[in-house]
């Protein structure tokens, strides 16, 4: 009896909490009460599970009942159940906010510093090429006339164009922080550096050392450098911007908690860049993640498992037997679950029908209340402004004036659809003021509450934009391939991304002569003779 009770306590609670091993005394009490329940219910078909208890509260209450002196040692840790996930979210969010406010991204600043240095070097090089001969051997230089001046103008304008082009392409605020370096940018920077270094090398050896007098040649050398830099900039545009525009892969993104799916067509990108594009689209395409909607399926799953208990008749064996025991236990549970006549599908059906009815009823009341509230407000006309009547309100005050008449209906509707944590009273009043200012109808005002919108629609604290992790088996700087699978993990959920290559489409042509469209009548005449 003793061994049985401790063992069953483990099998029931081991999956739920990381408790200590001193469960024994407490679990015996609960076990006794459950034996009574199950013996009663053996005669009936359904086995009612004991109600799911919140774990932290349970431990403290039971400790006092049984007067276990060790209750101080046997505290459990917070687990990721749905009741506690919000608090864990808050903790992570706070820590990340601290990081943002205090720390600046070292990596980003390093990147910016390096690119600025490289840019300066690149710009000043042609100017240096032109100026250095004047500084070092001015007397020996052969003055060159109009040809040089023409070349000066061309250098100046090409440098200006290069400056504008680099500013347009590279000096944009970064849209994302990637885990690894951006391979193409690094390659281009290396190429530019090598290029400029080789030019300097040639200049240093052939021109500075020998103190060449042909100034026109030097100017032409500087012009060729600027031309080559413009071509490298063209290469940068093609590699960084143009190559991934042509769609090549179709990515299927599924959210792990509720299965919302979208498809995106992307070009040939590396996995980290594809992840950035997907996340940017996630914020506008996917409905906001609502953990309150998932509790129903979790409670059903808990009921399935909690109704059965597995007893080990042979007693705990050696190490080899432990794995075998676990396997046989789970198989026994699956078999028992399949055999018992489960009526939970019935409950689900009626529950969903009832819920739908309730939602529709609340929605009708809400729409009527809002329409009535909007009739109390009218925009002041031009003529009235001269008369200056008493109660003139700005949009915020007007919103506050009509809000109480619809507040209750709105609150009830949000509670029924489990959206109440997404909208605070302040945000609702702000939205109402916004709608009044822009002459929106009550239907337009209600649209953001009747349908769950994308994540961007809600406050910034729902975005969690800094807490994404890219999980991938292949290296994140490698390119997308057919069949690549990677995960984008946020705190509560993850996005599963699978890649498929867009099929190669072969089009055939068929020419139809416009004169070939001819028709005949279908005759079915009957003549009497």
């Amino acid at each position, binding site marked *: 009896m003793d061994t049985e009770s401790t063992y069953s306590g483990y099998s029931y609670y081991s999956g739920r909490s990381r408790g200590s091993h001193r469960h024994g005394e407490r679990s015996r009490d609960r076990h006794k009460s459950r034996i009574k329940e199950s013996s009663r219910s053996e005669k009936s078909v359904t086995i009612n599970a004991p109600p799911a208890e919140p774990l932290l509260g349970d431990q403290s209450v039971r400790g006092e009942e049984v007067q276990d002196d060790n209750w101080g040692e046997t505290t459990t840790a917070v687990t990721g159940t749905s009741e506690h996930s919000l608090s864990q979210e808050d903790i992570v969010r706070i820590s990340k906010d601290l990081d943002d406010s205090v720390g600046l991204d070292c990596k980003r600043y390093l990147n910016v510093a390096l690119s600025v240095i490289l840019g300066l070097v690149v710009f000043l090089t042609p100017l240096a090429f032109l100026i250095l001969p004047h500084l070092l051997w001015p007397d020996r230089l052969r003055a060159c006339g109009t040809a040089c001046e023409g070349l000066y103008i061309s250098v100046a304008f090409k440098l200006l164009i290069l400056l504008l082009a680099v500013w347009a392409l590279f000096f944009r605020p970064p849209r994302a922080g990637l885990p690894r370096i951006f391979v193409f940018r690094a390659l281009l920077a290396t190429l530019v550096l090598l290029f400029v270094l080789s030019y300097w090398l040639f200049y240093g050896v052939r021109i500075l050392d020998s103190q060449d007098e042909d100034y026109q040649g030097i100017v032409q050398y500087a012009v060729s450098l600027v031309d080559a830099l413009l071509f490298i900039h063209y290469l940068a545009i093609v590699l960084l911007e143009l190559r991934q525009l042509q769609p090549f892969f179709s990515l299927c993104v599924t959210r792990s908690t509720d299965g919302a799916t979208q498809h995106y067509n992307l070009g040939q990108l590396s996995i980290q860049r594809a992840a950035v594009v997907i996340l940017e689209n996630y914020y506008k395409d996917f409905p906001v993640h609502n953990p309150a909607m998932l509790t129903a399926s979790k409670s059903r799953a808990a009921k399935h498992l909690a109704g059965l208990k597995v007893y080990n008749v042979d007693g705990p064996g050696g190490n080899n037997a432990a794995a075998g025991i676990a396997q046989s236990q789970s198989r026994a549970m699956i078999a028992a679950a399949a055999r018992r006549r489960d009526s939970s599908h019935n409950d689900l059906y009626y529950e969903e029908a009832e819920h739908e009815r309730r939602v529709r009823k609340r929605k009708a009341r809400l729409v009527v209340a809002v329409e009535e509230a909007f009739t109390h407000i009218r925009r002041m006309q031009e003529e009235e402004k001269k008369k200056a009547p008493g109660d003139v309100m700005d949009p915020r005050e007007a919103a506050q004036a009509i809000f109480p008449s619809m507040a209750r209906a709105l609150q009830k509707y949000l509670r029924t659809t489990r959206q109440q944590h997404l909208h605070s009273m302040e945000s609702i009043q702000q939205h109402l003021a916004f709608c009044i200012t822009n002459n929106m109808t009550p239907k337009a005002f209600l649209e953001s509450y009747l349908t769950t919108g994308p994540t961007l629609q809600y406050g910034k604290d729902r975005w969690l934009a800094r807490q994404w992790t890219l999980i991938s088996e292949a290296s994140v700087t490698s390119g997308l391939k057919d069949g690549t699978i990677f995960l984008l993990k946020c705190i509560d959920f993850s996005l599963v991304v699978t890649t498929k290559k867009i099929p190669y489409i072969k089009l055939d042509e068929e020419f139809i002569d416009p004169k070939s469209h001819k028709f005949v009548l*279908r*005759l*079915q*005449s*009957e*003549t*009497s*003779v």
Partner: protein
Amino acid sequence: MSFIPGQPVSAVVQRIEIHKLYEGDNLILGFSIGGGIDQDPTQNPFSEDKTDKGIYVTRVSKGGPAEVAGLRLGDKIMQVNGWDMTMVTHDQARKKLTKKNEDVVRLLVTRKSLEETVRQSMMQH
């Protein structure tokens, strides 16, 4: 009654002799025909093979000369007075049936039940 192009058609036929009746100025036979090579064969409710473009009897007026002579609804007319009716247009068929100087028309008609009767009688032997 289906035909294979290029092969001679063989069918069990019944000879029917209809005497025309005077109705006012016209000589009538008392039935209606449908079909013909210029018509749509798929609309024919009486044919077994929906590509058969032959001439079929689509209506027999009660008590008329055709009914008296033994013509039935759904019969396929193979010959009229020796003229072939299996490969004619609708209008040609009508003309062959309504010649003003003929009092009597001798038809060769076929129907499915004829073949079955013949087969049954052959089996009895």
